[in-house]
């Protein structure tokens, strides 16, 4: 066998099987450990950190299947192969369904065993490599903001900085027309910077630490703030936002983040509504949950797109206003909602509108007192 020595663990209660395997393994350069019961094998696996484990399915005490599951939860890249008697091929298949890589029926020849070791170790290499790639991809995703920020944002910032100063320096020197063109350049670069910032914020916002600052929040506050923020655009399009909020709907969370989450949904509803349309926002307590629902009568979402709308970079077709999103808002909303232990769903009737529902675990009885935030005053968001 080639390559560096690997660690192989045998778990079998039959001494004759263990002995014959050990005899074969002695010819190799691999490190070997063995145990005669499932529990002992698991103990050993923690310290020994095997690449490959052979485990007997039928043992007194802990069964082979239980051992398999425990091993996989310890390290999913450990390759497990089960030993089984001819009578229990069905059990071996079941074991493979539980994550065993393969099975070896007893009795087996030394060549069978060697060949299984080779295949098992190859599989181990593949799994380890795959896990490393996944980790790398995850790290890339997490560090995306920092990477893109330097590569993409720095040149834009430098251009904008020089436009700022050039425009100021050329004041009175260039014609009004030339000045206007320079200002347009600066304004377009500014839009591009704002776009990059929104993307980066969507990606890099680490919502997990929010939990440390969770406190009781009356949902009327975030809803009212979100509705108010969406009003500018709504008024421009003559869209009426009506909202009805149960004042007893209280959740444990972060008011600012919840405002952001609701605003993204309400903002979308306005964006994809037709001129003169109507957006309804409601928040109710039901079944131990607070459900915030945002309904519009806008262009709707094609059924084929519905499964993807909460993924980063999905963006709807240009709304009635001709403005398309950047594809971050709903992804960020979902992350915020999930950080609050909730979920967000959407339903849509293309051409007739969409309904988004954010469900959050309700705080049972909001007892006013020290340490509990008084429900914030409901502003104009509440229905008349």
């Amino acid at each position: 066998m080639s390559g560096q020595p690997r660690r192989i663990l045998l778990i079998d209660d039959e001494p004759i099987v263990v002995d014959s395997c050990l005899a074969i393994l002695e010819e190799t350069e691999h490190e070997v450990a063995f145990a005669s019961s499932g529990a002992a094998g698991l103990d050993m696996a923690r310290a020994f950190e095997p690449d490959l484990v052979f485990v007997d399915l039928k043992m007194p005490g802990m069964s082979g299947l239980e051992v398999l599951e425990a091993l996989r939860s310890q390290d999913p890249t450990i390759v497990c192969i089960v030993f089984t008697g001819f009578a229990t091929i069905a059990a071996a298949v079941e074991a493979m369904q539980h994550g065993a890589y393969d099975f070896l029926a007893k009795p087996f020849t030394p060549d069978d065993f060697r060949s299984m070791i080779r295949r098992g170790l190859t599989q181990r290499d593949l799994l380890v490599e795959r896990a490393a790639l996944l980790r790398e991809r995850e790290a890339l995703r997490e560090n995306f903001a920092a990477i893109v920020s330097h590569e993409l944002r720095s040149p834009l910032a430098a251009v904008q900085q020089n436009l700022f100063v050039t425009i100021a320096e050329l004041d009175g020197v260039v014609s009004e027309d030339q000045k206007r063109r320079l200002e347009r350049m600066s304004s377009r670069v500014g839009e591009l910077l704002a776009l990059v910032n929104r993307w980066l914020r969507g990606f890099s916002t680490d919502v997990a630490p929010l939990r440390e600052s969770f406190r009781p929040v009356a949902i009327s506050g975030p809803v009212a703030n979100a509705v108010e923020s969406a009003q500018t655009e709504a008024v421009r399009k003559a869209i009426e936002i009506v909202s009805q909020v149960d004042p007893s709907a209280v959740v444990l969370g972060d008011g600012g983040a919840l405002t952001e989450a609701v605003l993204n949904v309400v903002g979308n509803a306005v964006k994809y509504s037709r001129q003169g349309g109507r957006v309804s926002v409601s928040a109710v307590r039901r079944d131990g949950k607070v459900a915030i629902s945002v309904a519009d009568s806008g262009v709707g979402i094609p059924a084929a797109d519905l499964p993807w709308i909460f993924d980063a970079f999905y963006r709807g077709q240009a709304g009635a206003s001709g403005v398309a999103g950047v594809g971050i808002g709903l992804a960020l909303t979902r992350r915020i909602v999930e950080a609050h232990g909730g979920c967000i769903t959407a339903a849509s009737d293309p051409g007739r509108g969409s309904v988004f529902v954010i469900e959050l675990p309700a705080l049972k009885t909001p007892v006013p007192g020290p340490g509990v935030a008084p429900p914030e005053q409901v502003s104009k968001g509440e229905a008349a």
Partner: protein
Amino acid sequence: MSERRKVLIVDDDPDFVAGIRAILDREYDTVVAYNPKDGWDALKKDRYDLLCLDIMMGRGAEGVMMARKIRRDKELRNMPVLIITGLREQIAFLFPGQAVHPGFVPVDELMEKPVEPDLLLQKAAALIGASEARQGR
């Protein structure tokens, strides 16, 4: 105004430096260092009234190291430091779990690139003024 105050800019992006230097030149004598080492040498050689420091230089946050080094230095610790950086989130990434605020490193002010010329001059004047008031000048 009496003598012109001196500002040191430490940033590894020459184009960006050109863009802020032209602004600061209106009111200050500016000196530029394009890496933290030259910046440190300049600080040791001359006295400056303000340091404009970039965070992301070299292989990472070398600007942060420099700001910390300045605050440990008896002679330099009273000099105001204005950090001009990319996204605030960049700082959140570098210092996970910490508040996204200039307080992460002992500097006096943090601004995002690009900076409005008037705002930059305002901040610079305010920082220099406050520092001189503290030292009774």
